[in-house]
């Protein structure tokens, strides 16, 4: 009896903290229409700021708390709104996704660079050593404080959103931004308020939870995944349901700690949020189904077979030349980029062509490396390579069947949860915490020869992906991306297409994983953490997610960035540049590939204008230079007036 109560108290306290995080997520989603993947990262950044102000500069904790919650966190929120969010008005779902994920990466990289992880930090103790005994359970003053603050925030939010005009207007902006402006409210002011508030809530949740957890950047950022689960229970909309979901999670985790045998424990507790997330997604009908197209970048026709084969041969030859030139250390990072490029090609197919958000591609790569290591044996047999494709492909098909109905944010969340759960369920288990699985290479053994082999695999997969794009399956993917409703009404098998896309992509990722394992020779769980999947997706998005050329450029960037990082001495250069690049996608949604190609089009149309006289190509140019007219395309269609 005593234990039930004691674990119940712990569960409720954790539940409160999760509820606080989840409510912050719901609030930003409800008031800005953007699901903020960076919510946890904002909280983490502010918790470290709080440490800096209180422990670092010696400001007493209550004053530091006030400074952080009411001055610095709102300022960060305002800055984020101004730099990253405001350009997103009218942007597609894919771009908002990339921008908030990029923000996560950027804040993580920045916090890691500012507060070096080599020092152990502690937050100042709040009300230490004081506790009361309620029905034979010791409850510390800190826990009571957490409870009071969480309830207070929940009540204040509820009142704000249903009783005050400012709060109602914030909800109105999400419903119909233009109509809000027509009603005389300023939508930008409303968005500013919403992001300032969201940042404050994130900061409060992180600061409160920090003393109960490891105080490190990554851990605090990732805690938000639990908040995602609770927010989905509330369908990203209803605060009471969100709080209930958070409480259930807190209690489940606490009782799992109390009553499950300890050898299961490390498996079960990270899986709980995922289990709840999946259960909620399957049982509840999402309140606002994302019917919009993901749309990251403009569609371009795929290259024909002959030039693509030519370029592939050129790529392999160039890598052979490079392999001769680079030093051993640089060669290592260079090949690392190319093997990741193979995994990114799977994303070109799945996310770029098919519009399916997948935040778990490195998990499939990990399955591939695992299969190669176990089945391939010491000789790296072809059987191992086959297993490295087949095993992840089967897992991909299974995942696709589970998430069949989901699109957009919900799909992204569930693939993220899948990756999160696999970290502890599979990788920590099968590979061990230290990383001790040897993966042998297929065919080539020397570093130079293997680089050529890896480049060859990359080139072949790239040619294959281009062939898919040109073929019938590519058209199906594009159609599914455009409108799955229209596909169904035409009698197209959307289910089959989606499952096939996930299967093929997972197979490619697995092949990439086998190569990755071969390149590293030893792999550990940290190679396949979900953050790695995020980095891959974002790098690809920055360089152009729906073109094979984008994957090539992204691979080369990942190959070169660590070398630059080493020579320039800037820590986390990769994180920071990729994060920043993703944030800039709000302004240039087509990525680097899009910028280059519209620059090319502009040059071409200028050349044409020179040939045909000044007025001849104005209309054609207006249609081809995506940027200036991108927002108005729709209206232009409506108001076609001709003399």
């Amino acid at each position, binding site marked *: 009896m005593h234990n039930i109560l004691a674990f119940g108290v712990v569960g409720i306290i954790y539940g409160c903290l999760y509820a606080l995080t989840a409510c912050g997520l719901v609030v930003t989603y409800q008031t800005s229409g953007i699901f903020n993947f960076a919510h946890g990262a904002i909280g983490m950044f502010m918790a470290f700021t709080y440490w800096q102000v209180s422990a670092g500069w010696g400001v007493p904790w209550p004053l530091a708390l006030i400074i952080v919650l009411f001055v610095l966190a709102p300022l960060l929120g305002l800055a984020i709104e101004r730099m990253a969010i405001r350009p997103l008005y009218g942007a597609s779902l894919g771009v908002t996704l990339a921008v908030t994920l990029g923000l996560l990466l950027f804040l993580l990289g920045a916090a890691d660079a500012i507060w070096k992880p080599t020092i152990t930090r502690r937050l100042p103790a709040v009300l230490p050593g004081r506790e009361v005994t309620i029905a034979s359970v010791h409850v510390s003053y800190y826990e009571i404080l957490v409870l009071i603050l969480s309830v207070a925030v929940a009540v204040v939010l509820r009142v704000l959103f*249903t009783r005050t*005009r400012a709060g*109602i*207007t914030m*909800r*109105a902006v*999400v*419903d*119909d931004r*233009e*109509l*809000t*402006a*027509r*009603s*005389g*409210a*300023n*939508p930008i002011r409303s968005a500013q308020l919403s992001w300032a508030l969201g940042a404050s809530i994130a900061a409060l949740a992180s600061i409160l939870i920090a003393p109960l957890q490891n105080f490190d950047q990554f851990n605090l950022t990732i805690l938000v995944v639990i908040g995602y689960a609770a927010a989905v229970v509330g369908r990203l909309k209803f605060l009471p349901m969100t709080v209930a979901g958070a409480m259930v999670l807190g209690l489940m985790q606490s009782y799992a700690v109390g009553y499950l045998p300890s050898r299961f424990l490390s498996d079960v507790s990270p899986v709980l949020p995922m289990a709840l997330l999946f259960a909620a997604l399957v049982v509840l009908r999402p309140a606002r189904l994302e019917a919009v197209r993901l749309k990251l970048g403009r569609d371009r026709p795929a290259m024909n077979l002959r030039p693509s084969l030519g370029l592939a041969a050129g790529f392999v030859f160039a890598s052979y030349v490079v392999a001769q030139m680079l030093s051993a250390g640089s060669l290592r990072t260079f090949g690392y980029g190319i093997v990741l490029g193979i995994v990114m090609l799977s994303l070109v197919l799945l996310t770029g062509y098919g519009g399916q958000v997948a935040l778990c591609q490195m998990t499939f790569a990990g399955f591939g490396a695992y299969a190669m290591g176990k089945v391939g044996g010491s000789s790296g047999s072809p059987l191992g390579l086959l297993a490295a494709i087949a095993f992840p492909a089967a897992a991909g098909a299974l995942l696709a069947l589970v998430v069949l109905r989901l699109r957009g944010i919900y799909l992204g969340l569930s693939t993220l949860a899948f990756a999160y759960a696999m970290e502890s369920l599979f990788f920590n288990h099968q590979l061990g915490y230290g990383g001790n699985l040897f993966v042998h290479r297929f065919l080539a053994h020397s570093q130079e020869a293997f680089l050529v082999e890896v480049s060859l695999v990359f080139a072949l997969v790239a040619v294959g992906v281009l062939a898919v794009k040109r073929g019938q399956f590519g058209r199906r993917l594009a159609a599914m991306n455009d409108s799955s409703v229209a596909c169904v009404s035409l009698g197209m098998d959307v289910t089959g297409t989606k499952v096939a896309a996930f299967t093929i992509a997972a197979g490619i990722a697995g092949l990439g994983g086998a190569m990755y394992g071969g390149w590293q020779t030893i792999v550990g769980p940290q190679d396949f953490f979900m953050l790695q999947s995020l980095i891959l997706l974002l790098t690809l998005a920055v360089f152009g997610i729906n073109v094979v050329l984008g994957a090539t450029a992204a691979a080369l960037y990942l190959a070169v960035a660590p070398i630059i990082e080493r020579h320039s001495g800037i820590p986390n250069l990769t994180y920071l540049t990729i994060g920043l690049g993703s944030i800039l996608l709000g302004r240039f949604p087509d990525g680097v590939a899009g910028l280059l190609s519209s620059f090319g089009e502009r040059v071409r149309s200028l050349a044409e204008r020179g040939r045909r006289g000044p007025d001849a190509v*104005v209309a054609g140019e*207006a249609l081809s230079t995506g940027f*200036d*007219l991108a927002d*108005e395309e729709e*209206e*232009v269609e*409506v*108001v*076609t*007036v001709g*003399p």
Partner: protein
Amino acid sequence: MSLSAPDLASPVTFDPADAALELYHVRAGYGRVEVLHGVSLVVPRGSVLALLGPNGAGKTTLLNCASGIVRPNSGCVHVAGLHVNEVNPDAFARAGVCCIPEGRGVFPNLTVNENLRVFSHAGNVPYDIVRERAFARFSRLKDRGNQMAATLSGGERQMLSMSRAFVAEPAVMLLDEISMGLAPIIVNELYEHVHHLAAEGISILLVEQFARLALKVADYAAVMRQGRIDVVGRPDEVAAHLSGAYLGEMR
């Protein structure tokens, strides 16, 4: 054409100070496409002006200009005698312009009361009075105060959006195709309300495809075609020229 397209409506003489809304030689469009090629139009205070014309004539663009969503490339927009070319839509709303866009004049995920609350942002009239007057005019909304606007019927939604007329004094209401997708009996009821609103002194600019319905409640009418005002006048005068405007010039 017997009636020319003059700067101001020629058959009727206005005192400019009496204009609730005035567009003067407005040119506007989207990007490089010009839609309005110099439009002049006056809505006299407390009257209903019906703006008719075929698809693609630029009627909605004209409303967007008159509510600040689209900025004119040249020409002037005056609201109650104030020059308001350069201001944002929210400032237009505060000046008393309430533009009800076609088919989406309410916030579906807010309740009726919350909708009225947001509407009353603009005006100089407090929320309580807005609510009182809206419920007095549209009695069907009264017992739906805490219902989500998404669950209202099409006619009720239009009534809710027309309640915006009460938030500011004096108000100019711009109505874009309120008959869109509604049953004829509901449309008739809505036009009844338009008539009453005008009687309460609210100036109304009405865009409508069903010319006959609109002409019945209108004090003045204008026909627009290819980005220009073709005809302005009393409803009966304009009616005679309608088929020509829709089906082609009669030369």
